[in-house]
């Protein structure tokens, strides 16, 4: 870094962090000057959130030092960091909806007079605080639950400022905001800058990053790729930094054109609370990859198709017949299977045996159809076919590795002979060996005529596996890419640096 900059407020040197032996951050350096907006960008899983949690005291780093306001600090927890002057505004707000703005701002350190909370003083101080960041329309005695999202965000910021924060971390601050509210946030950020507050700004949206920040740090796979002055870079260059890695692993062959069958699932202008006007065709025999950032509607799409939170508008046809997929059971009866993203929370019943886990869906939906004994035999064969290793049928599934758990979940669905398979991050948290086994299996299912929809944040996987890629952004389809697309193209569609192609 050049020495013309003012003394940094925050300096991170060589920050490292591992979870359960997986390196999430490795030797990350970063500094923020007073009054500077420093943006941090990167793909899902690049380590942004972990880094922010380390700065705000949520995690202790395994290695490296955190220097704040000229002293090396080891925070013992978020409160410790707050007292030191580091505030964090999460995507999800931490506000008490039934309390007033002032009560929220001074929660836990209310001004006190004669042992009682001095309400008048609290209201006055809050009003002054809000005025100092240019917020004069927000009454200090309004109930937070009645405020809009943008105003709640202002309350969060005021809350941090009431603790004399000198560094504010904003994690995806615009994710919940409507377009016109984003402008308001911009104004707020600039006023914070004028007060000499340093800002660490985490965002997926490159447009904002360019509008607001002075410098940008790109993280990838837990390492810092580069730190650039915003004025000296372009969106394309940033995207290249975010993804640039070599495609090294092996993926099974894609479907030949003649392997692709008729359209099995057709969505026309389908939408619900999280999705709008989704048009999508899923063909027998193909693997359709779904790309996009977290929260872009990828999982919402799978959940809508599977009837967990069904489509409320538009038409869905299955093999050219209109269907209403209003619950998982109807979807399962229609031949749809769904392997969830959150394996622990939604994929397994942790304390039941491998066999019970594999039988769960058959027992629930098709109990009457097949004989018990025959079913058990078949599921045992499937468990063997997907190569669940190192476990007896009667072992509790929670003791298995992530990869083996995922194979058991797969066996559960294969037992139903599904014709449409929805995979949400099928290889997340899985070791390399199991990963390629699952890739092979997915491809084999497609080759056998199943229609496969696969959501993945892992770009090499998405590119390596998919016959076509649909990229989602903000709840709708941002664009479609053919096999052989590059990572840059996917990311560019996902973050919205290019106009979506007219369809």
């Amino acid at each position: 870094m050049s020495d013309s900059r003012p003394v940094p407020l925050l300096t991170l040197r060589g920050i490292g962090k591992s979870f359960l032996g997986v390196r999430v951050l490795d030797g990350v350096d970063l500094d923020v000057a007073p009054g500077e907006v420093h943006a941090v960008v990167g793909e899902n899983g690049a380590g942004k959130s972990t880094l922010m949690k380390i700065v705000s005291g949520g995690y202790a780093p395994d290695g490296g030092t955190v220097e704040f306001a000229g002293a090396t600090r080891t925070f013992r927890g978020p409160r410790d960091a707050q007292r030191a002057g580091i505030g964090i505004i999460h995507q999800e707000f931490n506000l008490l909806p039934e309390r007033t703005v002032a009560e929220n701002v001074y929660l836990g350190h209310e001004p006190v007079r004669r042992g009682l909370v001095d309400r008048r003083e609290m209201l006055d101080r809050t009003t002054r605080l809000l005025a100092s960041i240019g917020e004069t329309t927000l009454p200090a005695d309004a109930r937070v639950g009645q405020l809009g999202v943008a105003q709640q965000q202002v309350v969060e910021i005021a809350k941090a400022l009431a603790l004399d924060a000198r560094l504010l971390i904003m994690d995806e601050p615009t994710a919940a905001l409507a377009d016109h509210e984003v402008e308001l946030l911009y104004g707020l950020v600039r006023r914070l800058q004028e007060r000499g507050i340093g800002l660490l700004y985490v965002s997926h949206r490159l447009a904002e990053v360019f509008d607001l920040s002075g410098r940008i740090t790109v993280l990838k796979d837990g390492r810092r790729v580069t730190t650039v002055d915003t004025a000296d870079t372009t969106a394309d260059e940033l995207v290249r930094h975010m993804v640039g890695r070599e495609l090294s692993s092996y993926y099974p062959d894609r479907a030949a054109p003649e392997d692709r069958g008729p359209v099995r699932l057709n969505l026309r202008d389908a939408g619900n609370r999280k999705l709008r006007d989704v048009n999508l065709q899923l063909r027998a025999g193909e693997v359709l990859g779904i790309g996009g950032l977290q929260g872009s509607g990828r999982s919402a799409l799978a959940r809508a198709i599977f009837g967990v939170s069904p489509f409320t508008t538009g038409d869905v046809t299955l093999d050219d017949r209109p269907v209403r997929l209003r619950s998982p059971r109807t979807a399962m009866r229609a031949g749809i299977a769904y392997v969830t993203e959150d394996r622990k929370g939604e994929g397994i019943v942790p304390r039941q045996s491998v066999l019970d886990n594999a039988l769960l869906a058959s027992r629930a939906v098709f109990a009457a159809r097949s004989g018990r004994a025959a079913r058990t035999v078949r599921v045992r064969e499937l468990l063997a076919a997907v190569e669940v290793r190192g476990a007896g049928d009667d072992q509790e599934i929670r003791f298995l590795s992530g990869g083996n758990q995922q194979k058991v979940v797969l066996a559960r669905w294969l037992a139903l002979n599904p014709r449409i398979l929805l995979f949400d991050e099928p290889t997340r948290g899985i070791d390399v060996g199991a990963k390629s086994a699952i890739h092979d299996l997915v491809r084999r299912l497609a080759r056998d005529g199943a229609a496969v929809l696969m959501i993945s944040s892992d770009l090499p996987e998405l590119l390596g596996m998919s016959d076509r890629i649909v990229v989602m952004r903000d709840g709708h389809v941002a664009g479609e890419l053919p096999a052989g697309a590059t990572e840059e193209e996917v990311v560019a569609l996902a973050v919205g640096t290019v106009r979506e192609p007219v369809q």
Partner: protein
Amino acid sequence: MQTVQPRSLPLRLPRVRPGGVLPILVILAVLLVLVGIRQPDFLAPPSLMSFLGRSAPIILLAAGQYFVIVSGEFDLSVGSLVTAQVVVAARLIDSDPARTWPVVLLLLAFGALVGLVNGLITTRLRVPSFITTLGMFLILVGAVYLWSDGAPKGGLSEEFRRFGRRAFEDVPLLGRVPYALLVLVVLAVAAVLLMRSDFGRTLVAVGDNPRTAELSGVRVWRTRTFAFILSGLAAAVAAILLGGYSGVSFQAGAGLEFGAITAVVLGGVALGGGRGAVVGAMLGALTLELLFALMNFYGVSGALRSTVQGGIILLAVAVSATRSSSR
């Protein structure tokens, strides 16, 4: 370089599985030994048989409670349901033997209905079962008082009472085998078979992780409601046996819900659901009854019953909680 992989020997030490019945069997065995030392006669067939018959109601209630707890809920209403059933039976039968069977059927239907209501309120209206069944408990207590004007009326027929107090006489080896014991054995076998069925396995899965179950096509609300119905039915059978054994009173079912919950927890079933065997729950109830008998033999005041129960419930939950978190 070549290394010989050491093959794991086929020898396997019996593992203490969480949720297994081994711990409760050990506790039961220890208690039996203690009883045998103090009161060897107790273990002779006549008194043992009558002890088992006497314990049948609480064992059945524990089985009923097990279905609810293993699915992740609670049923606090069974005690007052038993009282209500006994009082209702006395008033409806009014000492007329001809009414015995219709009333028995009515009691079973009533138990199932209370379970259905508990289940639907819990699953469809999303009232926590703790509150639902506590409310049901209070409603039943009040309704019974109101309906009987403050004192039990009528009387049970001898026909009705025989389930709880009569026995097969002169059975070889065992001597006198109470009807209640026969009812218990039949229903216990049915409970075990049920837990091995698709429904039983699904019930435990629902208690373990309802999200996964729902996403695998299980109708979680129906499964749980059915568990409440089973608990209500168990209460009905327990009421029939108890009414026969100890007669009609407003105290007939008092405290039984906590006895049942204690027994279930003691039997290694996790509160919150997802783990444990119905046999464990039933053995837990038997162990609890044996413990009370033992206290009796050692001259410990019967007043301490609820204190002991409270201690057991806290200890059992603490043990299972620390064991599962240390893994």
